[in-house]
């Protein structure tokens, strides 16, 4: 049994890797399940030992990868509080917000016997929940788009503006209308607690989508 702090072994990096990998899978799956993009651009892939859907559109994939690449340093420093996948209608008003709320324990303790297989099981449950979430959500209007928002802790925003992880791919402050939703309805999907991270996923859905 070894106890590691955030400084040891770059543990924040490991957690960030795991989370960003998961977020990539989750974003693809959300786009597929919520039919933001036609199902024709999605292909079946295997992740966490179960089938998932992943987009084959190179530009979309690149965008998702770049976004998560910029999110990773925040997660490493435990500066990211929420990562939100917002689905917006034609007028750029959000209709659904998939909120991944992340919190990392200040003291990371990893027992050698559990390793990370348990985490994989938990993430698999997330994936499964996302894939059946349309049962609890209303259909979206046609012509939706999506964007990714990050809620940071403390003054991390200022650092983000100074340092661009990827050139010409800066973070900007989100518009008020993208963040706030009229008459939101809260739908909890899944939560997990593990040694390395706590995370919960819920959906804010606009009551009147059309």
């Amino acid at each position, binding site marked *: 049994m070894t106890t590691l702090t955030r400084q040891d072994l770059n543990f924040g990096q490991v957690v960030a890797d795991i989370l960003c990998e998961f977020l990539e899978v989750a974003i693809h799956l959300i786009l*597929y*399940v919520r039919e933001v993009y036609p*199902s024709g651009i999605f292909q*079946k892939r295997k992740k966490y*030992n*179960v*089938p*998932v*859907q992943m987009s084959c559109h190179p530009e979309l994939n690149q965008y998702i990868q770049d976004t998560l690449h910029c999110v990773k340093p925040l997660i490493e420093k435990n500066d990211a509080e929420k990562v939100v996948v917002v689905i917006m209608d034609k007028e750029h008003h959000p209709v659904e917000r998939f909120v991944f709320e992340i919190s990392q324990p200040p003291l990371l303790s990893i027992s050698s016997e559990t390793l990370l297989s348990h985490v994989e*099981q938990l993430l*698999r*449950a997330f*994936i*499964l*929940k996302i*894939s*059946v*979430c*349309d*049962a*609890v959500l209303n259909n979206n209007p046609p012509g939706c788009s999506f964007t990714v928002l990050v809620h940071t802790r403390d003054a991390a925003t200022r650092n983000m503006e100074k340092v661009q992880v990827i050139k010409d791919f800066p973070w900007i402050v989100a518009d008020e209308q993208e963040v706030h939703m009229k008459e939101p309805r809260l739908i909890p999907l899944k939560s997990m607690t593990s040694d390395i991270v706590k995370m919960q996923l819920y959906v804010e859905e606009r009551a009147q989508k059309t």
Partner: protein
Amino acid sequence: MDELYLDNIDEYVNDHNKIVTYKWLSLTLGVHVNTAKQMLYHYLEHKRKESSPQLHATYLVSGKLEGNGQTCHHVSLVREDQLEDFKSKMSLIVSVHVYSVQKALLKDSGPLYSVDYDAVKDNLKNCSKYSSIRCTNAVPMSAAELQQFQDVQRAPPPVPESKTSVTNGNSSTASKPSSKPQKGIMGMFANKSAPKSQDNSKEVKSEQKEESSSVTEAVKSKQALKSNPVANFFGTQTKKPDKPAKKEEEVVALEQQHQRTAPEEEQEPAAMQSHKETKSDSRSKTKRTEVSDSEEEIMEKKKRRRIKRPEPDSSDEDVIPDSPPQLKTKEKSPEKEPEAVRPSHASSETKIRKRRKVLKSRTFLDDEGCIVTEKGYVSESYSETEDDFQSTKQAPHASIKAKTTSSSKDDEKKSHKKSSASSNKGTKQASIMGFFQKK
């Protein structure tokens, strides 16, 4: 069956928003799969009557389906809205049953697998216990049977090998009446050595230089340990020479030839051996003080290893194609033989050692643990073959003697003598003689 399960399923489907497959239900509730299918069917019927909010079902349909002019048996998962359509396409429907019930409208079959994944994983050892597919002939072995089976599987290979080795040995040594399997090795060496004796002597010299350097290093570290093992060794050795005396003549002849051939084999691997054996010897150190038999065994094992390495070389040479296998079989067979058999072999082994040890003693000498074995070599060779050695070529003797002296004397002396031994042979003999006199 009471109707409670309907509430159960309703909770899973509506409250938990789960995909409930019959397999998952069977594993979760611990019921037979056929029962689980019926439960799902009843639940679905029940809900349809209530005209409750959306509920989606997946059906498993199997039957004959014609496609591309061929009729195949298809097993398909079909969504409810496509069920009738799909059924109409089939020429013969064997079975239709509810596969899963869920609130979500599934866009693909992926989640159906995912939902079963963890349930099956949790019951991996007995995930088929509720299945209706059975094979009465397939009875799992008990632990004892399994162990027995594994033993049997391991045992067979050595048995046939040992047999073959015996036959080969006899055939190769047909001229000699000995029935012992080890003769086969001797015979092989004899065949080999004849054509290449002269070439070998040169090669041997070059080898000795290399080996001597490595030997000295290893030996230095363990000078202190040597004295005791030496004493033990001589005590045991004095007894042994008597046994082999009966077959001295044969053995001697073989030894002479063998001495030439053996170094040749070792040439290439020699460098590597010196490193590896130092490691292996560390084990044997602890065993020095044990009975001479145990020491012998250790020595034998080491010998086998060495013999293996040179095989490729020997195969390249004039050796009869059958001979390389012989080496292998012999190496393995002794290990498998029960302890009771050992004593009978012991006498023959001592003979072999005389031959082999001379060959390999150099590398062994390097190793600390091998010191004991080395000593054994020295005594044997000199006691039996004094006359023969002198009469035969000096080259092999020189190498042997150098080793013997080195083992008995200090490390420093070894290094000098060995290096000199490779160049000068007369001095070596003198040193050996001196050694014996001391004793």
